[in-house]
């Protein structure tokens, strides 16, 4: 099986450690994955803000970059959701039938990381070690657009040393929402403040999620308030071992 990793633009530019963690993890599980260097972004920022024309060249680049792979793994529920649900809309808008056909071929091959681990590789114990009190925030898109269900929790429960505590109102949106975070900055912050309060209520040292964009938002609030709680991508937790 030819496997590619879609690192995502935000991870590439802001959170390279998440991308590195995905490769470490996959390699440990015996998967030699590629990073197709032509990749950039899934075009979600444009699509969700209403700029469909501007999304067309980005989607085109996406399908070209990932052509020929059997599986495309991404450490982002949001980007996986965007590819699966929005690329066809963008392709239709472009009026380019060839693009529509390529999109229809590529989209179903995209897996969010936990889907790939649990469904394709069939593992929940990835041999990780992380001796901290952790709480987990299921991001909206992985929860509702993808329906990853309890896969992330099943993976976390197998991590040695990890003390997993339940997050109150876990399924409520953190308020990030892409450009919503700046277009409706105050509402976004109010939502995030409630999320941060729930995180603090758990007494966790680390908040884990499968989307760095949501963590950028919640983590930014937790840091501004000097709570001392840090945020971490699930891939980084799963990549850690006793020897690392």
């Amino acid at each position, binding site marked *: 099986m030819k496997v590619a990793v879609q690192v995502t633009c935000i991870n590439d530019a802001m959170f390279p450690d998440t991308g*590195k963690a995905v490769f470490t993890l996959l390699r440990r599980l015996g998967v030699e994955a590629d990073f197709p260097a032509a990749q950039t972004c899934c075009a979600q920022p444009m699509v969700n803000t209403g700029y469909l024309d501007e999304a067309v060249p980005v989607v085109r680049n996406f399908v070209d970059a990932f052509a020929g792979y059997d599986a495309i793994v991404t450490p982002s529920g949001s980007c996986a959701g965007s590819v699966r649900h929005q690329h066809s809309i963008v392709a239709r808008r472009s009026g380019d039938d060839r693009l529509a056909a390529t999109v229809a071929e590529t989209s179903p091959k995209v897996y969010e990381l936990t889907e790939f681990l649990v469904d394709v590789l069939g593992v929940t114990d990835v041999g990780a070690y992380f001796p901290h009190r952790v709480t987990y925030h299921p991001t909206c898109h992985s929860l509702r657009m993808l329906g990853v269900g309890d896969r992330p929790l099943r993976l976390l429960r197998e991590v040695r040393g990890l003390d997993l505590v339940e997050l109150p109102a876990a399924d409520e949106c953190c308020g990030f929402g892409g450009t919503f975070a700046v277009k409706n900055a105050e509402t976004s912050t109010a939502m995030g403040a409630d999320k941060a309060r729930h995180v603090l209520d758990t007494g966790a040292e680390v908040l884990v999620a499968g989307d760095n964009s949501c963590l950028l938002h919640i983590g930014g609030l937790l*840091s501004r308030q000097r709570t001392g709680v840090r*945020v971490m991508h699930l891939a980084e937790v799963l990549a850690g071992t006793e020897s690392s």
Partner: protein
Amino acid sequence: MSATFVGMPAFPAAAREALSDTQLRRNLAHATGTIRAKRAAVVGEVDEWEELRLAGAAIKDNTLRHLDEHLLRLEESLTDRGATVHWARDAAEACEIVASIAKQHAVDEVVKVKSMATQEIGLNEALAAQGITAWETDLAELIVQLGDDLPSHILVPAIHRNRAEIREIFRDKMAAAGRPAPDDLSDRPAELAGAARLHLREKFLRARMAVSGANFAVAETGTLVVVESEGNGRMCLTLPEVVVSVVGIEKIVPTWSDLDVFLQLLPRSSTGERMNPYTSTWSGATEGQEAHVVLLDNGRTRALADEVGRQALRCIRCSACLNVCPVYERTGGHAYGSVYPGPIGAILNPLLRGTGVDDQVDSLPYASSLCGACFEACPVRIDIPEVLVHLRSKVVDAHRSAPKAEAVAMKSASWVLADSKRLGLAERGLGLAGRLLGRFGRKVMPGGRRALGRLPWPGSLWSNARDVPAPPVESFRAWWRREGRR
């Protein structure tokens, strides 16, 4: 009544005020939290809930596909049963029809029940301009009317008020509107309801004309259906000599048996009850009574013409999407500037009124974090996030001739992101800028990463409340290349 949605600011500005209203935030969080839990419990009891949702969506979609035929059928059945059918293209026409009926009967006051459509067209104000007073008889609507306030929820228009506030309103305002509130009125719900009952009973007994809405209109039998909790519908529909019903043309269902599905979906989704207390149905005119039905378009055919957006016309106004919406929970309904607030309001208003003409309306598709909770809750499976994104694209397209800063930013982002070499260069710039900016921000975030300082606009929109980690010195892409992976 002087309160009006006309001239409301765009959503972000309207929300700002609501966000700082402590009482409002508390009232809303409490009310939506309670109803959310009730709904989840009774929906959980129904094993075939998903099939019911699919059935509800399918019935509505099929009906909308042949809306013209069903409407003609409805008109025929209604006329056969002695009702007079009127067609209204817009708000002004509809209001004029109702006012002229009132004048024919020489009435100067009407009682109202279940009438979102009449609020949509501003009927009370239009009647007042012609010297006719309209009294709301639904408890929550009465509270809004007496308080000179605006509705903030589809089902519970006074959801933003608590008991203490309602007591104040009753004590201050009831006397001027009819029977005064008792002197020793407390804020116990039973006493408040009792005061409203006595106040309203006088109105019911006196009124010669009633105005209603309808939850459903059955084409085959010409039956209008009103679903409610207080029994005021019965009073309004049976006592007066004239009943005028203002009904949106999307309320139609073809047959009586189609109702079955909706009478299961609606109460569980809206009030979290297995069954609603009162379901009133009436077909045409009863003896000694005159019945009029105003079939209202007011933008509905415009919505119908929108391929993606037309699913919004399936809406049965249950308000489940409002109650689960994290944005609505914090901003309340007034921020949406319409009688249709919350997620459904964010799509219905632009669909009915059109995009690209009004800043307030254009701001609504952006009043969502696209979390998807609304779609999950909607009993007729309206994919609200999908319609929101679609409407955003219509807003953007409507403004393409005069691009804003945002459009320029999106164009350049698109250019950079269409080619990995350009992105690689941009990231190198970001790394440099990060190193520079990082010097100014001395703060270290939990986990050890350095934070940037406060950013200038538009970055300030982010950094006013949230720390921003400094960009890494090396992007993933650069690391991959340096490692020689390829």
